[in-house]
């Protein structure tokens, strides 16, 4: 018996066996990939339509059959998010284009997670959901706190907040003074019929990025950020070569009123401050005198009167101009 030959044959058999197993595994993987690709392509598509109204966004999902519509559920999550999920995986088509896993449409962030889509809507307060037939569709009306689009509106930004106290004098911090002023101005403007909102309403930390995001989502007629100066003067910051008429008018109106009502001087600064540069709407940053840190209510209320009166006059003039146009 030639043991060597037998050994060689056994080795060759083993090699062939190993190769064929490897080949079969490869084919299986290939078939699996193709099948999943086909399966993905066959995912049911749901058509999405988005409408922006004065007080709400309307999201309409048009389905191919009622079964998927019935299995679809809608929930509100934390942080202004709506979750639309179904028992089956699905794709969303917007204007004949299948949405990717991370999209932004009309200021609404859309993300896909497994068998659900998350819609992030800024300042979301409430939702109303309707399921309708012929064609089968799901309608979500997402109500937002306030939309500043349309009429003259002001977005008031009290600087600092939370751990960022700003300037401090005898336990009185800038963050509290500017919040007080902003709330009072907001109230006065509302009493005079001017739409306005605040970037923060309590002692919370709001990043500059978030403030810019709020401003660019709300698109106000004017963005006014309130801070305190290290000196006893009023400083009005606007971006160099500011071309918007509304900012120019507000600066000139404020300057006139401050000089009439206060002994402190007014300085107008053309500095490319990041915050006012990144905001699409006309933006102004005002620094009020350091003595406001003494927290004298009479003096603070005088500032409230001047600022709100100035904004009111600019608003009225703007509405008149728009009507005439």
């Amino acid at each position: 018996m030639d043991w060597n030959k037998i050994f060689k044959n056994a080795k060759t058999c083993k090699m062939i066996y190993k190769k064929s197993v490897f080949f079969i595994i490869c084919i299986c993987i290939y078939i699996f990939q193709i099948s999943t690709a086909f399966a993905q392509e066959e995912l049911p598509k749901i058509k999405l339509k988005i409408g922006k109204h004065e007080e709400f966004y309307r999201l309409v999902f048009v389905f191919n059959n009622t079964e998927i519509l019935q299995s679809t559920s809608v929930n509100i999550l934390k942080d202004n998010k709506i979750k639309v999920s179904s028992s089956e995986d699905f794709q969303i088509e917007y204007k004949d284009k299948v949405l990717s896993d991370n999209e932004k449409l009309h200021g609404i962030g859309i993300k896909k997670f497994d068998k659900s889509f998350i819609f992030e809507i800024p300042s979301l307060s409430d939702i109303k959901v309707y399921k309708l037939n012929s064609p089968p569709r799901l309608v979500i009306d997402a109500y937002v706190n306030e939309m500043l689009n349309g009429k003259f509106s002001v977005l008031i930004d009290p600087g600092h907040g939370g751990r960022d106290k700003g300037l401090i004098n005898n336990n009185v911090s800038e963050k509290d003074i500017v919040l007080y002023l902003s709330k009072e101005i907001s109230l006065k403007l509302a009493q005079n019929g001017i739409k306005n909102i605040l970037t923060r309403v309590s002692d919370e930390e709001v990043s500059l990025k978030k403030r810019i995001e709020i401003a660019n989502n709300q698109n106000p007629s004017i963005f006014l950020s309130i801070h305190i100066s290290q000196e006893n003067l009023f400083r009005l910051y606007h971006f160099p070569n500011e071309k918007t008429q509304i900012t120019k008018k507000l600066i000139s109106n404020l300057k006139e009123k401050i000089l009439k009502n206060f002994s402190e001087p007014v300085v107008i600064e053309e500095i490319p401050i990041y915050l006012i540069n990144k905001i699409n709407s006309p933006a102004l940053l005002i620094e009020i005198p350091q003595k406001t840190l003494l927290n004298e209510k009479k003096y603070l209320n005088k500032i409230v009167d001047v600022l709100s009166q100035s904004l009111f006059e600019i608003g009225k003039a703007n509405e008149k101009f728009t009507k005439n146009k």
Partner: protein
Amino acid sequence: MKNLQKINKKIIFILIFVVILASTVLGYFFFFKKDGEKITNQEEQTTEIFKLILPLNNSLITKEIYVKKENGELKKLEKVLEFFFNELPQPMNETKIHSIFRDKENKIYLNLSSNFATSRDAKNEFYLIKGLYSTIKTNFNWITDVKILISNEEKETLSGHIPIESLKESMEAK
């Protein structure tokens, strides 16, 4: 004849004296002056000139500093920044540089002590950051961007008005 010989000797003596004196004077000017030049050349070779752009009364001023030559760009940067911080008012003049890093895109990460992040108004903060960024960019043009960390932590701003994640973005706004 004797008198003539005496006069000749005197002339020769005077001539020798004049030659010695002239050579001494020439030698002094030639060698001593050259040595002096050598000394100043050596000084120039061991020092480098940098420009500090400092915030002062809500504007910027420029100062020149002469610093001993250092090997390595980050060492030089650290030295220049130490001078920059020393020129600032209290408490910023006590700012310590914990560390400086550089990434592959030549963005610099400055890890500074909390003295640098004190409360100030928007204008003061703007000029402080502008001064720091301009000092770095003027002297080290290879640096593409600067990010400031305060005591090993990422902060959005120093005093609530200007982001410090990318000084390029904050300062080169158009």
